[in-house]
């Protein structure tokens, strides 16, 4: 398998007046072409920040992102993104929203219309071209989000909690369709989520991040056949494993927090006049 993207020692720290807030610490992993990778971790572990860095929306404090060997410092034309908030432009029709990326690239009108219509059909919204986003349900809006991301023919599709703002039933159907699109194309998908069954259902590999500062705690291979049976014993086994890893992280972070509290209490105690 070809190494398509490398995340090398990515660290993200926010300068604060007294101490640095470290969101990500030495994150290293590789994504292969055509792979579906999920990134999971307890909330606040910086997983969305990591995705933003990969997308070129944020800069790492240190470390590198490489796409096909080439250093990524700004948004790459072959990397596209789907947002949790859908982030459709409400003043644009569905067609115009899907055309957006092509428009920025200067694709001629008729050509981008044809491409956009093809992707609108792919996500099952044929005939909705001239509606505005407010006329669509959450699930349909995210379909437009996927169509917009795919229309520019990316090599990698980044998804930031793409299914978490949609009701569960709709999300399930959409996940199945995304898995299908992944199977039919050679595209790489990278999904940040906190939903374990979602990650197991979709991923070839799951990168588990630790609580803040986020480090790579473990990388879990999911070698189940597709479509995946969520009630199968292997699925449940992987779920148990991941749940255990995350619970451990949560407990660690609680313990760390308690220790910090104790230390501060000790400091206060030491300062008191004897």
């Amino acid at each position, binding site marked *: 398998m070809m190494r398509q993207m490398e995340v090398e020692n990515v660290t993200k720290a926010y300068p604060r007046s007294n101490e640095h807030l470290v969101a990500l610490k030495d994150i290293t992993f590789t994504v292969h072409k055509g792979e579906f990778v999920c990134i999971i971790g307890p909330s606040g572990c910086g997983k969305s920040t990591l995705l*933003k860095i990969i997308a070129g929306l944020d800069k790492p404090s240190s470390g590198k992102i490489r796409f096909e060997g080439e250093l990524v410092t700004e948004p790459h034309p072959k990397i*596209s993104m789907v947002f949790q908030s859908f*982030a459709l432009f409400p003043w644009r029709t569905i067609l115009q929203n899907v055309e957006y990326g092509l428009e920025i690239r200067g694709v001629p009108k008729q050509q981008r219309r044809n491409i956009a219509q093809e992707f609108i059909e792919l996500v099952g919204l044929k005939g909705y071209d001239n509606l505005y986003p407010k006329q669509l349900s959450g699930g349909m809006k995210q379909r437009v989000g996927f169509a917009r991301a795919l229309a520019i023919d990316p090599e990698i599709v980044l998804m930031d909690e793409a299914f978490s703002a949609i009701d569960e039933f709709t999300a399930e159907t959409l996940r199945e369709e995304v898995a299908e699109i992944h199977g039919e194309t050679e595209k790489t998908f990278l999904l940040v989520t906190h939903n374990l069954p979602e990650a197991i259902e979709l991923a070839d590999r799951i990168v588990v991040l630790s609580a803040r500062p986020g480090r790579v705690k473990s990388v879990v291979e999911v070698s189940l056949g597709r479509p995946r049976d969520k009630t199968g014993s292997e699925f449940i086994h992987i779920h148990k494993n991941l749940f255990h890893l995350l619970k451990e992280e949560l407990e660690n972070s609680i313990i760390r927090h308690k220790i910090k509290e104790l230390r501060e209490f000790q400091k206060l105690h030491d300062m008191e006049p004897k």
Partner: protein
Amino acid sequence: MVGFFIAWEGVSRAQLIPSEKMPAFSTVIATLTVCASNWEFIYRVLQSFFNLTLGIFLALFIAMPLALCAGLRNKFDVTFTPIIMIVGALPDLAILPVLVIWFGPGNMAAIVMASVCAFFPVYFTVREGTKDIPHDYFNVATVFRSGKIDTFKKVVFPSIFPYMVTGLRLSFDFVWEVILAIEIIARVTGIGTFIDASVNQGTIEYAFAGIMAVGAIALSVDRVAFGLLEGRIRRWKE
């Protein structure tokens, strides 16, 4: 509306209020028809309309870039907006005489006065609108590698457009409300000074005709121009 006019007519006919203080509705309408074919009257109405509209566009031209900067750059907002707020808190009409000293009496002073009155609604609504742009819209623009000009044209401007229309509408209504003060202070021959002169000369029906004309213009621009714009916005806005 119709009931109001009938009541007005009745009150005047019954001489409850003497007609030199309040002419009957029918008299005002008759006067208005006479005025509508008088070039002097039409000229005054157009002059006022021209001055106020130009003033509003001048305000838009100045307020837009400032409001955009304030909405997008927090540092600018923190230093600049408090100054605007202090100036805005001063009574607008009290600033007007000073403007006459600076610009001299005439249309120029009236235009600048109108733009001062129109500035604040535009500034504050557009600033608010800019701050309300969801951050993810900019992320979308960046991920799809949009340049600065494209981001302005395709993301920022359409986002703030509804706010700008609201600001303009508020400005427009406000400026027409203070037209009398603006024209008297700037000493312009417009519809405001026409009303004032009619009152002073005791031809009260002309004053009422003038007031009706102002009302009709303000109302029709508000309904037609802004109504159309807002109708378009409502097609997509939640």
